[in-house]
């Protein structure tokens, strides 16, 4: 059952991702992206990360996607464009490179997987943390202790992005060309 669901979600996620790139209208791309994000949330559920799945649906598939949709509609960007991708020699090259990478991953993953994050100590540590503090606590606690630097740094990153966006988007205040 789990395997069937996983294949379903994985296919929808990958198909949606392809749709984002290949879609001609920004709105269609956006809806494909919602499908991808929702399928990833489904995969999180299969991994028993229910809190992550809920956050994924609420924040990404919900809030951020709606924001994107608003921007596209407000700026009237929802027209069809001619396809950006030209299926010439380059697409053949891109496909072969993708295939090569996929094949490499496949051969590597065919080996028995030793204990990394995929299993062993790290996984059991996560299980223990979830059992002790609950799913929210297991994420929130390290966020403000072990990873507090990363958390604060994300704030700096967002500030820089806002300053950068404002600088580039602010209308010019009637200054004329310099001589």
């Amino acid at each position, binding site marked *: 059952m789990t395997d069937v669901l996983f294949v379903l979600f994985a296919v929808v996620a990958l198909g949606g991702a392809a749709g984002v790139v290949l879609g001609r209208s920004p709105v269609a791309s956006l809806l494909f992206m919602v499908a991808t994000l929702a399928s990833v949330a489904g995969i999180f559920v299969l991994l028993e990360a229910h809190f992550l799945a809920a956050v994924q649906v609420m924040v990404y598939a919900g809030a951020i996607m709606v924001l994107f949709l608003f921007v596209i509609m407000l700026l009237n960007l929802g027209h069809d464009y001619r396809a950006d991708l030209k299926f010439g020699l380059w697409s053949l090259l891109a496909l072969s490179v993708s295939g090569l990478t996929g094949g490499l991953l496949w051969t590597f993953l065919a080996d028995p997987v*030793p204990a990394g994050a995929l299993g062993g100590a790290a996984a059991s540590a996560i299980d223990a943390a979830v059992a002790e503090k609950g799913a929210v606590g297991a994420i929130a606690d390290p966020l403000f*202790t072990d990873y507090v*630097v990363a958390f604060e*740094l994300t704030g700096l990153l967002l500030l820089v992005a806002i300053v950068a966006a404002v*600088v580039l988007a602010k209308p010019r205040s009637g200054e004329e060309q310099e001589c």
Partner: protein
Amino acid sequence: MTLDYSSSFHYLVALLPECVLFVGGMGVLLAGVSKTDEQRRPELGWLALAVLAAAAVANGWLYSVSESGATAMIAVDKFRLFANWVFIVGAALTIAISLAYVSRQRLQAAEYYALIAFATVGMMVVAASRDLMIVFLGMETVSIAVYALAAFNRRDPRSAEAGLKYFLLGAFASGFLLFGIALIYGAAGSTNLQAIAVAVQDGAAAGGLMIPGMALLVTGFAFKVSAVPFHMWTPDAYEGAPTPVTAYMASAVKAAAFVAFARILFVGLDGVYDQWFPILWWIAAATMVVGNLVAVVQSSIKRMLAYSSIAHGGYLLVALVAANDAAAAGLLFYLFVYTVTTVGAFAVVVTVGRQSERDTAIEKYAGYGWRRPVLGTLMTLFLLSLAGFPGTGGFMAKFYVLQGAAEAHLWWLLVVLVLTTLVSYWYYLRVAWFMWMKEAPEGAVHRVGGATPFAIYVVLLVCGGIVLATGLLPGAAIDLAQGSVEGLRHWVAGTAPAH
């Protein structure tokens, strides 16, 4: 004082220079809000310089702080502190050559200087980081600030083009980097570099995820340091960006990427040296050959310096491939000298262009040396240093990198480095030849455009002094660099990994 990160306060101490610079950068932003007249642009620049000076003091104070162990997320080691000097000096020189430019181009001064300060914070975080997550966040902070700086002159379409190209390819590269980090995390079960190294050594890391992860990470960083074949964005981005920003991109931004790359390769991925060695070997060789050969045919000085910066990236990659202490010290020394030399050369380009984007064609330099002997002499000095002429800092930097490569028996790379350096003499000396040997064309009225700003003279003299000092008496600087890499690669039970 010894830091063990038992309380959050220790993070604050360990990141003191970053905190000072970040708060100061916000102060510059706020000072710009209350700005009423247009004449106060230079004052914001001087304020940013004062903030950088405060960060430098904090960085010096950190030498008296030690950490217990070498596995914490934030490193307080001399490698980081030396790199911080490079970033602070690079940012300060960039701001100094921007003062007149920003006023003349009527750029939004507060945001301009604040973004430079924030980008410098990102670089310092990258250098301090022992965790791939922090590396990524720091690199993104640097990149986003620099995308905006490259597109900063909104009256110049080339600036917008530069920003957009840099942004699209930079975001693409960040994707590679992040995917690589995710795969490495999957293999090793941690993003901490020491934990990754231990997992690789114990054989606990899944090779099936580690190797593709390493390959993607190397690809991402190759984009960031504009190594061939991932260099396509560099010439356009460097040519279109405002000239002081180009100086910053070619010097400090590149140094930050190299410092992070070095720490990741030398500490975290040392166990898979045999896998990344051939990849980086070919990238280094291709970068040196392509960068130098294409630079020969450039007619714009900014484009020529862009390809020259690609070529210098190749020389620095040789130090990474060598992966021993001599090469690591050479890398730090090289980054310092290269940063100073590059900003010095761009200071002359800014002056020749009269604080705008004019006169970037190399032909425009004809006869310039005789009209402005001081500028001409210093430009010649910087070009000779970039080429690696004996007696300049650039020569000693190449010498130390070559020494590291020789210790690692990289004879072929060594040959490529020397031969491509000989090629580089052609295009560097071509500019000097135009300046001193060519007459300005008949009828061309060369407007001198007022006096050279005071700050640019200071920058030129400082850069020229450092280039000569590191060239003639490199002892102190190389000793500092060698002291800075001690312990970087010896963290497991006091032994250096052998290749």
